[in-house]
């Protein structure tokens, strides 16, 4: 951006930490250690990093909004001429929401549930612009229109619970803009949203920034979002910025080994069949930060100097700088160490699908599955309608194969998974596992079949009982289903399972809270594997995990499939994961599968307009990667009142007359690709 112009925000050597322990034995563990960056007007700086790297803590320190245990330890935050860390609290309040505003990750919980939308905008106008009454009302209305909320007048008097997730985030943005801020801090603004909504919100943020010439500090873990939004990027690792670069240089030539690893860990079609690059080890805990480079223990290029001496900044060109000894030496022309290093791109791929013959032995066959939840109303609680969560889903899955069920939140994909396992009773239709009809079976008759089908859930923090040891969690299923009888055998089996998922056998005696997110998901996988199932329904198993951890879990799932011939029904909203892991894909919209086919067909020649829009909305972590985004108007309608005709027609850019009347029958686009769309010739 404009280098000669003064930055609106200049952060120098910011250090903050969290108080740990009780009163007298208290010490402060540094979570952000010497972070410096500038943000200019009209510029977006993205702070990229995995969970726990200190990026949110940095943002909250700027506004001095740290949680109770947080302490700013030093440094300088210069914003419009004053050092925010020295300001009295009363002056700081004029900055918050006025000069500098913030939007948060979770729009559902970040708005006050008992105040109207209008009230929540008004209080900013009142505080910072001294607007009240009709003037404030008019301004609030303008703001809602500016963030693209239809029917803004009505929305002013509504409560947050009456709005969809995307609209709530728009309201959050309106609240943030109300004080005419010069700097907007966006902390993972789209992480909780669906991709089509994410595309809308990112568009909106870009447009508003350009109109107002605001500076923006974007906190994210998503390389795709960075590619779309950022002018400059700062990569954070363990409380430090390790690389800073303009967008182009960052994507064409990332230099820090950590950044390179992050790119390599992204699942992608080009890596299909091979293993994903993972980062060995873990981020060092705050209590035991190494003296040298913090990434040294996990770095493929590290040598003694890295472990002893913290690297200083090495300037490359045009504002691209890196904190790395290896890069510094390369830069000085001493390629002494680069020789022994491995280029991450040169990772030996296992050739794609070599030797895997396409098994056709069908394991699971689902036909016309429906799950309808009744809506009851009135004095007699009559059934006045149904939420058709799943409305006629048919699919097949063969042994050793993965079918990805893709769709946005609320499309019914999780319900399909649960209904197949009979965890929810289907209203209609059949699910046949290896020739055995599952629907209509009694609990008792289902019990022996539970051995053959298992589920892995999304949130490894909530799905493991915190009061049971890991060993007990794994043993529970085995003893309930009579897989292993004697105690001695059980112990050996648990140890073997833990090793199979890459955990030490002695983990059995510990409790879930002692493990990180990725390790917990491994425990959940071991629990599912314990009864030796043939089918595993994986419900978004990696969406709560960081990219590098996600890569580990995906690799594990893939190798387990190769070893054990497992079939996966993989429920996800993440296309990158689909590309890497799945053989076939089914795309769901409002309770029905709208397109189904092999991975290549669906991802590379999608026929349904919804699939196309969904694919184009996924932010690509490349500079030129994303073609024009197909923007879908509005949001997914309620499954209680699906639109007449094709459910998708109100949002479809190509809808015509027939679409408004008839739901299209399945049409064969190729021997393996089935599409439900009038545009496809029957």
């Amino acid at each position, binding site marked *: 951006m404009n280098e000669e112009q003064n930055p609106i925000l200049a952060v120098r050597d910011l250090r903050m930490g969290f108080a740990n322990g009780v009163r007298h034995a208290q010490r402060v563990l540094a979570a952000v250690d010497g972070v410096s960056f500038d943000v200019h007007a009209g510029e977006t700086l993205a702070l990229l990093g995995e969970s726990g790297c200190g990026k949110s803590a940095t943002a909250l320190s700027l506004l001095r909004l740290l949680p109770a245990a947080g302490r700013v330890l030093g440094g300088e935050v210069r914003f419009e001429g004053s050092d925010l860390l020295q300001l009295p609290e009363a002056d700081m309040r004029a900055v918050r*929401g006025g000069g500098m505003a913030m939007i948060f990750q979770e729009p559902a919980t*970040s708005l*006050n*549930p*008992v105040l109207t939308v209008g009230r929540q905008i008004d209080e900013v106008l009142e505080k910072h612009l001294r607007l009240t009454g009709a003037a404030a009302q008019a301004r609030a209305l303008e703001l809602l229109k500016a963030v693209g909320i239809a029917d803004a007048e009505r929305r002013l008097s509504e*409560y947050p619970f009456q709005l969809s997730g995307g609209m709530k985030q728009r309201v959050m943005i309106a609240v943030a803009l109300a004080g005419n801020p010069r700097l907007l801090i966006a902390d993972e603004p789209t992480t909780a949203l669906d991709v089509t909504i994410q595309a809308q919100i990112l568009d909106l943020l870009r447009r508003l920034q350009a109109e107002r010439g605001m500076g923006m500090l974007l906190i994210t873990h998503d390389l795709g979002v960075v590619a779309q939004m950022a002018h400059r990027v700062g990569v954070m690792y363990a409380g430090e910025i390790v690389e800073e670069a303009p967008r182009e240089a960052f994507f064409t030539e990332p230099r820090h080994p950590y950044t390179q690893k992050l790119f390599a860990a992204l699942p992608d079609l080009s890596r299909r069949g091979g293993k994903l690059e993972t980062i060995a080890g873990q981020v060092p805990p705050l209590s035991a930060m190494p003296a040298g480079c913090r990434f040294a223990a996990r770095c493929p290029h590290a040598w003694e100097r890295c472990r002893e001496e913290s690297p200083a900044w090495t300037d490359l060109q045009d504002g691209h700088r890196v904190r790395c000894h290896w890069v510094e030496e390369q830069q000085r022309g001493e390629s002494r160490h680069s020789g022994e290093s491995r280029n991450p791109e040169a990772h030996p791929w296992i050739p794609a699908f070599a030797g895997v013959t396409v098994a056709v032995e069908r394991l699971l066959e689902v036909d016309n599955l429906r799950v309808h939840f009744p809506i009851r109303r009135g004095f007699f609680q009559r059934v006045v309608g149904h939420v058709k969560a799943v409305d006629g889903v048919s699919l097949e899955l063969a042994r050793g194969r993965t079918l990805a069920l893709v769709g946005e939140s609320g499309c019914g994909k999780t319900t399909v998974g649960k209904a197949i396992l009979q965890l929810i009773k289907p209203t209609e239709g059949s699910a046949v596992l290896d020739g055995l009809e599952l629907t209509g079976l009694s609990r008792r008759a289902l019990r022996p079949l539970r051995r053959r089908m298992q589920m892995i859930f999304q949130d490894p923090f909530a799905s493991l009982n915190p009061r049971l040891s890991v060993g007990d969690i794994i043993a529970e299923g085995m003893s309930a289903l009579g897989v292993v009888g004697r105690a001695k055998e059980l112990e050996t089996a648990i140890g073997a399972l833990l090793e199979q998922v890459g955990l030490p056998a002695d983990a059995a005696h510990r409790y879930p809270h002692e493990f990180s997110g990725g390790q917990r998901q491994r425990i959940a996988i071991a629990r599912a594997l314990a009864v030796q199932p043939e089918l595993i329904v994986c419900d978004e198993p990696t969406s709560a995990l960081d990219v590098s951890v996600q890569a580990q879990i995906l690799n594990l799932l893939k190798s387990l499939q190769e070893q054990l011939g497992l079939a996966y029904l993989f429920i996800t909203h993440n296309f990158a994961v689909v590309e890497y892991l799945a053989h076939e894909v089914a795309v769901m919209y409002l309770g029905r599968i709208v397109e189904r086919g092999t991975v290549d067909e669906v991802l590379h020649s999608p026929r349904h307009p919804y699939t196309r829009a969904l694919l184009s909305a996924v932010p690509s972590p490349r500079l030129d990667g994303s073609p024009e985004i197909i923007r879908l108007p509005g949001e997914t309608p309620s499954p209680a009142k699906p639109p007449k005709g094709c459910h998708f027609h109100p949002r479809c850019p190509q809808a015509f007359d027939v679409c408004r009347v008839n739901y299209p029958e399945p049409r064969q686009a190729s021997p393996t690709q089935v599409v439900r769309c009038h545009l496809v010739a029957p």
Partner: protein
Amino acid sequence: MLAYLLRRLLYAIPILIGVNLITFALFFIVNTPDDMARMQLGVKRVTAEAIEKWKAERGYDKPLFVNAKAPGVDVVTDTIFFSKSARMFVGDFGRAEDGRDITKEITSRMGPSLAIALPTFILGLFVTVSFALLLAFFRATYLDFWGVVLCVAMMSISGLFYIIGGQYLISKLWRLVPISGYTAGLDAWKFLILPVLIGVISGIGSSARWYRTIFLEEIGKDYVRTARAKGLSEITVLFRHVLRNAMIPILTGVVVVIPLLFMGSLLTESFFGIPGLGSYTIDAINAQDFAVVRAMVFIGSVLYIVGLILTDISYTFVDPRIRFE
């Protein structure tokens, strides 16, 4: 909303019938009219005739549920259940053992009970919420720490101590207000001040500690961080954002007891000599007057059901997310 309330009221009917039947079983089957007569007449020198006479005078000589000898509808109406229990549905509680009309007694004693219970309730709610809010404002400071210690100490001390200590200090030593008694009309205030004050103080410990927890839980939520990010002052954040949300669990917890305020307080009323329903109940228990106890048990359960319905209604007022359909 209306349909929902109607349904709730209809649900109340079987509950009340159940309560009525259980009370009936307790007072007439477990403790038979013969036992009652023996108790009233004195256990030692009592003859069978005297018992029969006592029962006949009070209508306890009839069969429990079915009077096979009676003509017509009297088969079911000329029974103990119908004359004693079923009539409670229409507010007819019959007579006490001393011959006084219970319904009349209850209506006249309601006033003094409410005169104590209502101010105690309102003032108590105000004081505890304010105290809890103060602790929440000064969270993680020494004030908060010692405030919680004080709460725990206050809730560990028996209510009797506050009553006796208060009477000794304020009435006996300082002679500010009378120790006990009651008078009708506006002059009642000097009899009410002490019991109300003691009622409020004895409730602070447990409630304030609980409300403080609710406030702290709300303060940790994301929307509070949003409110601070808007540049609002801590006081505004606390009153406009935190208090409103915290009032949802607080109000719904206290609304249920509002109807029960009519019942008065057993302990306070008997210690301060207030002629309310609480002391009425205590006296009836002492005098083994089961007609009165039965009436009070039944009224208590009716009021509790009313309280639960009021709680549901109050939800819709404090929480816009809840609309009953």
